[in-house]
């Protein structure tokens, strides 16, 4: 089974082509060109889009616009190719790339996204529950290195690929392939306009 996986939820966009659990290719770029990456990956494997069997997409949390870009792409691919889609949490993909770590994604506005007790949350960096020795990964860990390290966290060097939600992990984690419209964004935050009324 040939799976195209991608994640556009953070500032670093990742794509991977995975055949039966084996990574055929991986790319990292910027959000608007995720299809360029997909095209290059397929070309490298001698495939055309119609030969894809499934799509795995990062559903966030992260940039709202980025998440939508990825899910709109995945849903349109599903329509065009009649393939199933699986959504994978960007936090869980990061965790799969750095087992035992606590993924921290930049949520802007001096907040971060983390998963606690199986649910994504948005918190102030100083409020992230780290114990001495907890390894934090992700663009939020890089951005708030000083705050997190002050709480005892250990953070790999900024350039480490452990901070990148590599799409091969989305493909490897994806289990629940099905209708694309069931794949929902993980916004975590409600729109500002709804805050007063919420």
């Amino acid at each position: 089974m040939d799976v195209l996986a991608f994640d556009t939820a953070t500032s670093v966009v990742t794509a991977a082509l995975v055949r039966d659990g084996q990574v055929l290719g991986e790319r990292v770029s910027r959000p608007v060109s995720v299809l360029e990456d997909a095209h290059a990956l397929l070309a490298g494997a001698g495939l055309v889009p119609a030969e894809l069997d499934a799509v795995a997409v990062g559903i966030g949390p992260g940039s709202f616009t980025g998440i939508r870009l990825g899910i709109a792409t995945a849903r349109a691919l599903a329509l065009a190719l009649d393939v199933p889609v699986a959504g994978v949490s960007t936090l869980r993909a990061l965790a799969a790339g750095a087992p035992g770590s606590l993924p921290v994604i930049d949520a802007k506005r001096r907040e971060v996204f983390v998963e606690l007790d199986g649910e994504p949350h948005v918190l102030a960096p100083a409020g992230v529950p780290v114990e001495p020795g907890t390894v934090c990964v992700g663009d939020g860990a890089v951005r708030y290195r000083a705050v997190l390290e002050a709480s005892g966290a250990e953070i790999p060097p900024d350039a480490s690929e452990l901070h990148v939600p590599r799409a091969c992990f989305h493909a490897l984690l994806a289990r629940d392939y099905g209708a694309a419209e069931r794949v929902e964004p993980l916004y975590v935050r409600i729109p500002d306009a709804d805050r007063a009324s919420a």
Partner: protein
Amino acid sequence: MILGVETSCDETAAALVTRGGEVLANVVSSQADLHARYGGVVPEVASRRHLELVVPVVREALAEANATLDDIETVAVTNGPGLIGALLVGLSAAKALAWARRLALVPVDHLHGHVASLYLEPEPVEPPFACLLASGGHTLLLDVRDHGGYRVLGTTLDDAAGEAFDKGARLLGLGYPGGAAIDRLAREGDAEAYTFPVARVPGLDFSFSGLKTALLYAVRDLPHGELERRRPDLAASYQRAIIRALVERVEAAASRLGAEQVAVVGGVAANSELRASLPAAALAPLPLCTDNAAMIASAARFVEAIPWPGYLAVDARASAA
């Protein structure tokens, strides 16, 4: 046939149009109800809704035309101007669809789309003409010489005409969108009851912010409890001032260009007083005046398509080209 996709503001739309300009399906899912409680379009709310609706409207357009994806030769999609997050939903979906099916793609300028609403069957308008584009997002005077594009003669320096209607409706305690509400109420009122200023801006530009302020003062200065009784007169006078500004300018543009034909496109073209004031103007049918994807597919007929897969890096743009 051409599949058009439009998500630049608060309508999620898909349409199927033939090369010859025949509309086979024109599906528009309006978010007006969703935004009504905010009194205007909230970009993040609009973008979330676009994501929910973009694939369903494409499916519905195919069903309406009794067509399949195999019938589509080209995908046309609005890539600006508009709300960037909203545009990216439609653009991402359109690019993915075109790439997966190995189709050509045409990124369409939304304003060109409005003009191209006039080129659809059964009564296509032929250029040249002077065109007023007035909507919630835009107020522009355009010199249209051929099907492929337009030249901007003037634009609004502040609010768009449709925005002026929305803001006026809010001041009068009417609903959103404001254009239809004011138009309806104005029919019961005296348009000469109040004299609202039509801004004198040099050249062919527009300004509506002073008008809005004048209405604010008129409402504020009413004796307590009088608003209910005076509302129709206020609506009629306010509408008169907006329409007068639009009509004066489009006529000035036509005479400057020596254009024999005047056309009006955009949501404000639905306004009954505007229609009555420009009886000879070419108008698109009402469903094609407000944002829709048939006009986007129509514009794509006159723009060179980017062959597969040369469009994968095409980005959205918030402002006019």
